[in-house]
């Protein structure tokens, strides 16, 4: 059995590796907790709103 490190975002927070936002990550053998930081969920939601605005304008 491969023992993985599991990272869970705290209440009201998300984990990010700079590429995406997650509530939980099961780390592969190459991965490290240092690759992730916690950010407030608001930051994630602002990013989604910004994305939606780009979509509206983009066509």
């Amino acid at each position, binding site marked *: *059995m*491969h023992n*993985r490190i*599991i990272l869970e975002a705290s209440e009201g927070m998300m984990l990010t590796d700079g*590429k*995406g*936002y*997650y*509530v*939980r*990550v*099961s*780390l*592969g*053998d*190459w*991965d490290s907790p240092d690759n992730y930081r916690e950010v407030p969920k608001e930051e994630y939601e602002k990013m989604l709103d910004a994305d939606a605005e780009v*979509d509206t304008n983009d*066509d």
Partner: protein
Amino acid sequence: MDNLEKLQDAISGHLVEIATRIPSVHEEGVEEGKKTEYDAFWGAFQDGGKRNKYIYGFAGSGWTADNFKPKYDIILSGNNNFAFNSNAARIDLAAYLESKNLKLDTSGMTSASEIFRLSAFTRLPKLDFNKAGSMYFTFRECSNLHTIDEINVTASNAYNNTFYGCTSLVEVRFNGTIGNSIDFHWSTGLSAESYKNIINHLDSTATGVTLTVPTNAPAVYDAKYGSGSWKRDTDDNINIKGWSFAYA
């Protein structure tokens, strides 16, 4: 006008009158006319079946279920970005093509970027992306898309937001090897069978890669394959230890 021409005109006039007065003849005439127009349009648009570049070719909301009725195989070769961008034909494209004995041939594509962006298709047929490389936003915001019959890929295909906004996606099947990070978190209705297929096609030699799924994926999977099966097939699967699994 000589007598022969007058006679021809008179006969034509009578024939038109007969055709108009006899419904079945009239209808056949109308249908024949429609078919002639259909053949003429699609023959020109698809170059008699030889066309293989459709950059923005089927793009736009003007394409609907009523008029998106290709006559020939749709052959996409090389770059065909935005081929179906915002195509509003909310149809099962796979079923349509099957009914006409046609195919969508993507095997020659060298990029699959944004080809189905914002299209309304509900189901797509087999897609061969073995040579496509980039699958940047391939199915971006295909919010009606429920099923992709098959996606053929190699370990080289790159998935940057490939399934962005595919909120209705339930069934997807891969053939080949998924060798780069891939994200399905927008597809919260993805089936257990889809997850099993995805997991079974993850490149066992890949490292530095992440499979991102909706937070409900383990529950969906376990409901189908038994309690603990998601953990068994992902975290505890030594064959894919190079993969991180993220839940969003």
